[in-house]
Structures are given as structure tokens and as C-alpha cells.
């Protein structure tokens, strides 16, 4: 409980340092824009990072595995998955939190003998890191899906007019997951 109180006290400093570390992964001109522009519509990336890390930190303090953690992680990772980052760079921000906590609470950690608590917090951060990998891969898969779907949509009407579309079985329809396409398929084959 001691560590949790300390984290709570140093909340603002930790979040600020963490935010800066994430932004340091961008070129200097970009990170100053991401830092300074506070309007969430003029600066969606800065807003996503800021809201995301705030949310993640709150969840960490709450000590519970809530359903909202993936959403906060997703806010940040979805953006970084299409930016100039390798997979490890895209999710590295979650590990930065460990470094920030250790640096901000360096004195308190050594004075208060709270290594057990620190280990528990760090284990939770590691868990979030694993979740981050999953989210990152899902984002990348989505990009590939979108590319494939675009190709399908471009050719679908042509195939339909050429009567080259056949009706799918129910499991196949479920696989595609588009009711709309199924309707059309039926119309063509009747």
C-alpha cells in the first residue's frame, strides 16, 4: 500500500515524465506540436497518448484488471501501428512506465523497503505489455484485412454481373460476416 500511496502522490510528475518519454520517440518538431496543441481535434495523436497513459495509470493504481485497460492501450497502439515505428518501438511506451516509476521514486523505494510492492506493480505493467503485443498485431491484421477487402469490393460488382458469384453455406457466410453481401449473393443466384 505504501507504493500505491507514493504513486498517487507523485501522479502528476510521473505522468508528465512518461508523456514526455513517449513523445521523445517523435522528431523534435513533431513532439513539440504534440505537447503544445491541447485541442483534441487539432491534435488527435497527442490527445490519444495523453488520455491513454492517464487511463492506464489510473487502472494500475486501482489494482484491478478492468475491462477498460485494453481500450486505453488501443488508443495509443492503433496510432503507433501505422506510424514510423517497428513493432517493438510501437509498444515500448508501456515499458517506459517502469523506468519513470523507478526514477521518480528512487529515494522512496530505497528508504521504504517496498521491493515486493514494486515487483507486483511491475508484473502488472508486464502483463499490460503482453496485452499491447496482442493489440498491435490485431491492428496490423486489420490493415491487411482492409487491403484485401478493398480489392474484393472493387471486383465484387464485376463478378456479380458476370454471374460468377455463388451462394455461400451458412458457416461460410459467418466467416465473411457481412449480411449485406449475403443478401446480394442470394439475389444473384435466384
Amino acid at each position, binding site marked *: 500500500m505504501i507504493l500505491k500511496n507514493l504513486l498517487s502522490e507523485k501522479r502528476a510528475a510521473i505522468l508528465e515524465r512518461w508523456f514526455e*518519454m513517449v513523445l*521523445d*520517440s*517523435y*522528431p*523534435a*518538431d*513533431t513532439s513539440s*506540436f*504534440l505537447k503544445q*496543441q491541447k*485541442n*483534441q*481535434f*487539432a*491534435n*488527435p*495523436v497527442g*490527445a490519444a497518448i495523453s488520455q491513454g497513459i492517464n487511463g492506464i495509470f489510473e487502472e494500475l493504481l486501482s489494482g484491478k484488471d478492468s475491462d477498460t485497460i485494453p481500450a486505453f492501450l488501443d488508443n495509443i497502439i*492503433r*496510432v503507433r501501428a*501505422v*506510424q*514510423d515505428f517497428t513493432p517493438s518501438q510501437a509498444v*515500448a511506451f508501456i515499458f517506459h512506465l517502469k*523506468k519513470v516509476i523507478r526514477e521518480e521514486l528512487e529515494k522512496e523505494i530505497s528508504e521504504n523497503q517496498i521491493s515486493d510492492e514494486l515487483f507486483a506493480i511491475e508484473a502488472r505493467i508486464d502483463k499490460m505489455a503482453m496485452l499491447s503485443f496482442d493489440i498491435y498485431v490485431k*491492428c496490423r491484421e*486489420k*490493415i491487411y*484485412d*482492409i*487491403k484485401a*477487402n*478493398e*480489392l474484393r*469490393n*472493387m471486383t*465484387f*460488382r*464485376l463478378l*456479380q*454481373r458476370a454471374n460468377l458469384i455463388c451462394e455461400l453455406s451458412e458457416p461460410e457466410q459467418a466467416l465473411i460476416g457481412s*449480411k*449485406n453481401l449475403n*443478401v*446480394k449473393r442470394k*439475389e444473384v443466384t435466384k
Partner: protein
Amino acid sequence: MAKLEKPEELIKIDHTPPKKDWMDTPAEFKEGMYCWGAKGKDLKILDFPNARDWSPKEEDWKLPENWKDTILEAMADRLSKYRSFRLFMDICVRCGACADKCHFFIGGGDPKNMPVLRAELMRSVYRKYHTTGGKIFGKTAGARELTLDVLKEWWYYFYQCTECRRCSVFCPYGIDTAEITMMGREFMNLLGLNTGWISGPVANCYMKGNHLGLEPHAIMNSIEGMIDDIETITGIRVNPSFNRKGAEILFVTPSGDLFADPGTFTCMGYLMLFHELGIDYTWSTYASEGGNFGFFTSNETAKRLNSKIYAEAKRLGVKWIIGGECGHMWRVLSQYMDTWNGPADFLEVPKSPITGTVFDNAKSMKMVHVTEFTADLIKNGKLKLDPRRNDNLKVTYHDSCNTARGMGLLEEPRYIINNVCNHFYEMPDNTIREQTFCCGSGTGLNASENMELRMRGGLPRANAVKHVRDQHGVNMLANICAIDRATLSASMDYWVPGVKVTGVHELVANALIMKGEKERETDLRGEPLPGKEGKE
């Protein structure tokens, strides 16, 4: 023995990219950020220079030996021809007002996507060859030689601009950065440095009249498919005519509406509306493209492709023209067509045959946007509408860059949506109307191989949609642009799942009560209408 780093030293990782001057940082070609190179066969069809297959990924771009002279001569020529170009090269004071207004910079973070810096890529070369300061002081005066690296940097970044002109709205001098990009692309066009996604459609359009390369029977066949669908849904068989001489009105729309969903539903909307009104109009299978990808290659090509619209209007002997929902099509029509290929003095000033309204705004061009036409019908109470049929939709409206900033078409689409839907919600003020964010894929960047670029550019728009989805439960994003209909679907899929994309006339047709129609069970997409769920 080599020094082994201690753990505390190892953990000190500097995430800041090395600080080098932008001029000393050549463009690094990253997968997902650029389109594939043009095919030689397409360039040949268009008589474009240096027709050959090439790939931006290869070191050798197969350029002609005198490539540098070609560009510099073209630059000198355009500077003498277009006063705006020289002005835009000279007057920027680098105040930075535009810097953070570009969707690619906002979503991607690459400083060379700041409009000021993207323009500087060209200004630096301009200074070297056209200003005394630049000639004498070189780099100190912000000037640099045109080298192969510079050319590649141009190519990489001028194909990372959608010419949306959002940055220009904020420029105190009114510099139109889009025109700088257009010029950059025009110069590179002289070396055959086109993209496949642009030159393919341009070649198709030149040969067959539309980007998709649809021949007359394919166009008619596609529309017949829609006629069947309309009959299934409404019980009414609409009966459009094609290439009919003596019709009062010619209708021209982007060919994307003919084949790709959800544009096809918008197209069904036009068919139903015109049938219900009983207007004397015809489609053309020759002037079968409203869009103009030639606009993304050179001024001359754009003019050449555009010429078919007036030519076909003359051949058919129509009185005026209605144009469908499209973005860049309307920038071309409203700002260039009249001076390129006009005056169209063989046509009459457009006058609605239903309301008698004279469209004075199109007095010279003779072409009216379909939302202007429809808004006027609604204003005069000429349509029977049941907006409850769209009650399952919570709609927001995306202003297409070109119709909003290029021709000021802001109110008509909103007026229509408010009359055909009961649930309409605006996105935040700094993301709509003149300040609208681009879909992220305009100007021929809507290929699939550059998906990362598109997603970055689409983020600011999607972020605003996400806001209204979370606040109001918005599930439909309406727009009046064929490229938007295609590309926003992908953007929504990634950033805001659950939000679908529609043209405004699809919403109109859903609400439109047609004379003699059967009780409708579904909307144009085959989905059950509100209150009809659960029925087969």
C-alpha cells in the same frame, strides 16, 4: 577486450531521432507510404514522356539523361506562365501557421509533411536557380541544387499531399500549397514519374471515357443491375436513357458510383430521384466520368480529359448539365472547365424544370451540382419524403475538401440531410466546413499499397467521427464524394468500427416516397427498414 556496458548504461536509450538539418536528410522510402510506379503501357497511351515500367523501390528510376534540364526548364516556363506560382515561391515568410494543419503531419508526425516544409522542398530549388541570394549564398539562403536525392524526395512527399488546401485556409498570405504540389507533380510527370494508381485510370479515361475503363455495354449493364435492385425494393422499374439526343439535361457522375459499393447505392438514388421527377435527362456512356485523375498529372492532361463533357453535351444537344456527388470533379468543373474548354455558349443557363429556379451561380459553367438541384426541390416542396425510413441512422456529414474549400458548397448537403433524416449531428467546428479534414486518400492516393499513409492521413477526420459516435451514437458518415465513399469506409473500419459511409442521395432515395411504390421492406442496401426488422 571490448568494454561491456553496465546494465544502467544499457537502459539509457535515447529515443530522440538524430538531429540533422532537413536538407541533409534524404527521403527514406518506407513501405506503405507510397504508390507503385506507373506502367509503361499506360504512359504510352497518353503520350507521356519516358514511358517505361519503373519502380520507386529500385535505385534506378530509369530517368532520361537530361532529366535535370527538363525540370529546370519546366520550372522556368511555369514561373513565367503562372504568376501565382512565382508568388507562392517568393512570399512565404515561414510563419508556421500552416505547419500543424495538414492531416498527414497531424496523423503521421513526419515534419516534411508540414505544408511549409513540403513547399520548401521546391522553394529551395527555386531559390538556387531563380534568386540572386540563392545563387550566391546557397544553403545559407535556403537554396540547394536539384539532385537525384532531391527529386526522389519531391516524389515521395508530393505524393503525400492530397491537395486538400486546408493549410491554405490558415495561411495569412493565402498561399495555395495545393498548387505547389500540383506543380511538383507536373514536373515529375515530364520524367514519367507517375504512379500506377493515377496513370492507369487516366489512360482508361482517355481511351474509354472513364477511370474504370468501362465500355458502353458494361456501363449499361451495371445500371441495369441497379434498376433490377430498385424494382425489387420499390416495385417500380425506372427507365433511364443513354446517349439520347435532344434530352434537356445531361447527367455526369464519377464512374466509381457505377461499380463500387457504397457508391452504387448513391447511384441508385440518382436513378430513383430523376425517375420520380420525370425529368427529360440522359446518361452518356462517353462522357462517363465526372472525376478527372488527369488533374493529378498535368494541367494539359486534365484539360484534355475534361473536354469530353462539353463535347458530349454539344453532340447530344442538351440544354444544361447536372453533375453527381464527387469531390475533385467539382474543383475541376467549377474552377477550370469554363476557361479550359468553354465558353459553353451552346448551352442554356440551368433552370430546374420542376421548380423553375434559375441557377445563376452556374450561369457561365452551365453545370449544376446534384445537391444544389435536390436542395432546391426540397425547398420548393416538390418531393414527398418520409425521413422515418432513415430512423435507424444517426448521421454526421463530412465536407469533402474540394466541394467545401474549392466551391463553397456547405449548406445544400446539410439542408438535404436534415430533410431526409431525423438524426443529424455535426462534428466539432474545427473539423468541418472550410476547416474540414481530408479523408486522407484524395488526389489519386486511394491505392491499397499505401495503406499506412492513408490511415495516418485519415486519423484527424476519423477522430472527429469517433467523437460524435461516442457522444451521440452516430453510425453513418454521409458525404458527397466518390473517393470519400470508397476511402472513408476503410478509414472507419480501422479507426471507428461500426460507422458506415453513404452518399447523400442514398439517404434521399431511402426517404423518397415514389408514386405507385409498394410498401418498402428494406433500404437500398437490402437491410430491413426501421420497424420491418425480423421480416423476411
